[in-house]
């Protein structure tokens, strides 16, 4: 009992200091009044939440959901074959895994800036296509929803590859052999044996990609050129330009509540299936 207490203490302190306390602060801010100069003042009010009912903000929320969903689906499409390939590789497996994680060695901001240089009118992609005579005028690759989606998929792909790889790695190869022995063609084996068995990895990866994509603000800001507002940008703007901390906090609370509900529902369904 005593030992257990001491072993759990660090993680408890961690949770209180870095999760519960900031959460309580944001919650409190969301019920306060906006200070003229940023910050919050009394009296307590639910005004920030009333403003959330504005269709303008709900549209932004919906758009962010769709964007995060699209990024998750695309990540899955690209990540699954990659994970399958790595798990079945007989040589260089560690090298491939290192390569998946390699981008984390540099800052996300720097890597997003790199995309700016690739995608701009006078960037590498347009220049190459033009010098090959494939196009005659630069394609507008930057500052649209496609560029934002690209940035999100690029940024969060490893979070999908690694959990799927982990489940595929643990999968019993004799199941695949059995499927083949019983006459399943490779494509049927893939969709009726491998994919269902890697479901926990797919769910974990999807959650790991969907949640940060939903709150992303750097990518839409840099690659979207501020032409669209996602919920992350909305929150950021409330804390900077608009200096409306209570409203920014209320948007964050709503977002957190929605994500919690979603993940909770998903995990419950998963555990029911397993049970």
């Amino acid at each position, binding site marked *: 009992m005593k030992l257990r207490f001491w072993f759990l203490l660090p993680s408890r302190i961690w949770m209180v200091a870095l999760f519960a306390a900031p959460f309580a602060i944001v919650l409190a801010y969301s019920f306060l009044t*906006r*200070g*003229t*100069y*940023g*910050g919050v003042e009394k009296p307590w009010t639910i005004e920030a939440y009333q403003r959330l009912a*504005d269709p*303008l*903000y709900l*549209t*932004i929320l919906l*758009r962010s959901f769709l964007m995060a969903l699209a990024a998750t689906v695309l990540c899955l499409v690209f990540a699954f074959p990659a994970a399958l390939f790595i798990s079945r590789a007989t040589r260089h497996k560690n090298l491939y895994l290192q390569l998946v994680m390699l981008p984390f060695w540099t800052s996300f901001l720097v890597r997003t800036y790199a995309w*700016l240089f690739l995608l*701009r*009118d*006078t960037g590498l992609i347009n220049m190459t296509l033009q010098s090959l005579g494939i196009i005659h005028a630069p394609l*507008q690759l*930057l*500052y649209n929803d496609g560029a934002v989606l690209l940035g999100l998929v690029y940024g969060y792909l490893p979070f999908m590859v690694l959990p799927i790889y982990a489940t595929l790695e643990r999968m019993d190869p004799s199941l695949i052999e059995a499927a083949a022995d019983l006459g399943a063609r490779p494509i049927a084996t893939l969709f009726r044996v491998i994919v269902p068995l890697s479901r926990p990895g797919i769910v974990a990866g999807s959650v790991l990609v969907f949640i940060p994509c939903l709150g992303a603000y750097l990518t839409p800001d*840099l690659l*979207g*050129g*501020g*032409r*669209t*507002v996602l919920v992350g*940008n*909305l929150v950021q*703007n*409330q*804390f*900077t*330009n*608009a*200096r*409306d901390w209570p409203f920014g906090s209320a948007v964050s609370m709503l977002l957190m509540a929605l994500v919690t509900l979603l993940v909770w529902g998903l995990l419950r369904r998963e555990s029911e299936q397993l049970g």
Partner: protein
Amino acid sequence: MNRRYFLLGSLATLAACSRDPRPRLNVYNWSAYVAPDTISNFEAEFGVNVRYATYESNEEMLAKVVTGNSGWDIVFPTHNRLQPMREYDLVQPLHHEWLPNLQNLDARFGSPVWDKHLEWNVPYMWSGTGIAYNRSLQPAPTRWADLWDSRLKGRLTMCDDPEDMLGACLKKLHLSFSATDHGELLRAEKEALAQKPLVRAYLNAEARDQLVAGDVLAAQMWSTTTQQAIDVTPSLAFAYPEEGFPFYCDCAVILRESERTELAHKFLNYLLRPEVSAAVVEYTKTATANGAAVALLPEATRNSATLYPPPEIFERGEWPRTLPRDAQRLRDRIWTEIKSA
């Protein structure tokens, strides 16, 4: 270096800091707003230690100093942030007897609209927002209204800042940059929505790279940023729009919480020296409010109509006022609407 040595090193550094017998002054300024030797020269001459750090936006600075015990002595808010800072009692009055170099200020900054008698601030650097464009764009834009021209479709950027962006729309309608009226702001929003199909992106400083690279032909941009772009790309030019435009001035203030009032004044007086100010702007390529320093600058810099517009252009400028809370909120909603349209 392993962790233990790192810890020991950090402790040694901490100990060294606390043992420094020199008086310490804490200065919090915009990034790239002093020359590399400005601070060290002050430290050497006055035998003090300056803790110097930088910020990227007024909001970043204000979020810290609003607490009243931020640990900073001197900060540099933009002119229209001075009034709310005073309302919150964050700044202390200046002692002019300790600031003999105030006489070096350009006459236009000797009694600015935001603080007629310089009781609270020392104007430091200023700039305007106008139109940066590629000279290949003919006829060259001269008015905000020219940024609604369909020939700029996809080759135009506007500021990612509600104040400047809505300001341009208001000025196009010949309204005040600081308009607070609901109807006027809605008219400005219509203008912004009409322009959005032409706008490639809403960018601030990043627009400079787009302009230099030739991706865009015209951009709403700050005069100082544009001058830096013109210095590397002579095919660029800048126009202060005919309808009028905003000027911004970043001003040094001493915080109420400061207990080093006299030393803080010494620092401000030092910054007001013509040669110190001139060295700063030669390095940062910004426009100083110090008239005596301008006289020391190379002729090309001094005569740049972008950095130091001639009197007939200067007259058309407007110093944005502090906006009341309701107007601020309405503007933000409009801004969100424009961006998510």
